[in-house]
């Protein structure tokens, strides 16, 4: 189903996005391997070009522009490997996408939880 894009701040990673982002996600998928990560770190732009990203997609990689990356077809599962190369965890990535510091993002998460029952 191609769902109405009516959930604010959410992009459905559907066929259209998967087609748009194929090379971008394929490049990120190659970061599963240590050799891929090493090559990426050595020359990020060249690595993107090797995977035939569009110039726009390459800019989002170089600029760590995660929101625009998603618009250009990035899937978070592959973007997570990119984040890993940058030494970022999912709370860092959450902060970056929502205009918060990591601590602020953690506080936002906490605000939606039920608190703790042990300890």
């Amino acid at each position, binding site marked *: *189903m*191609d*769902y109405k894009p009516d*959930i*604010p*701040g*959410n*992009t*459905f*990673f*559907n*066929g259209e996005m*998967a087609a748009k982002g*194929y090379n971008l*996600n*394929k490049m*990120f*998928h190659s*970061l*599963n*391997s*240590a050799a891929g*990560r090493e090559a990426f770190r050595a020359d990020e732009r060249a690595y993107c070009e090797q995977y035939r990203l569009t110039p726009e997609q390459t800019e989002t990689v170089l600029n760590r522009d995660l*929101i625009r990356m*998603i618009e250009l077809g990035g*899937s*978070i*599962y*592959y*973007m*997570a*490997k990119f984040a*890993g*190369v940058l030494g970022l*965890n*999912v*709370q860092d*990535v*959450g902060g970056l*996408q*929502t205009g918060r510091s990591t601590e602020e*993002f953690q506080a*936002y*998460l*906490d605000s*939606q*939880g*039920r608190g*703790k*029952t*042990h*300890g």
Partner: protein
Amino acid sequence: MAKIIGGITTSHIPAISNAMERGLEDTPYWRDFFAAYPPVRKWLEEQQPDIAIIFYNDHGLEMFLDKKPTFAIGCAAEYENADEGWGIATIPTVTGETELSWHIVNELIEHDFDPTVCQDIKVDHGLTVPLRLMYPDQNYKHLKVIPVCINCERHPMPKPSRTFALGEAIGKAVESFPGDEKVVVFGTGGLSHQLDGERAGFINADFDEECMDKLVSDPKALTKYSNYDLVRLGGSQGVELNMWLGMRGTMTGHVEEIHRNYVAPISNTGAGLQLLRHTPKR
């Protein structure tokens, strides 16, 4: 006939095994989460299941977009993990299962399911983190694992009603398997979370509690949700409820919840845990 003795729902995020690696289970952040696992481990120790059918999703390791299955089932004798982008954690090989798994495949085809059948796949954290949670010493070699991988990464994803039906078909296949094996079924992942976009950080604890309630008492109600609904109510990764529904579908007899926990947030997620005892119809 082989028997499903129970089901377990659990989170499967990488942060969990990181915490275990670093001995953080008793720290304030993690304590409530890990404190709930000993009763489940005790039950597994008492019951000594022979086989675990593990519903999980592959987060971009094995099932890339080049050829992405809707449902994939493993029939191999063993499974290894692999580097998912942050270095390969050396974990013991997962023991596979090659008799019941092929029987399940035969039955799925006979009953109009269209699985991708896997004789050689790497398994990602979605499968290995639950194993580590259940066996912190990583002595899980004795347990034969049948991986069942659900597409949760690229819409369109299998409908909750379809994944539940897959579970039902798997459950019937287990019952018709001419052996005495005791089978436990895992529904891993979830509950509500959103990793991506401006909506990152979304959690819906009310919906999570409702899911855990209905999973036991009225799973069919949950199957009425579309994946759009699950994203709206549970975040983009709320679709991982599909694995819980697949597990629940396998249990066609009497289901009793004997243990539950819910902690939010754990990383970005509402982390649920349930132990369900199953008494087959007979």
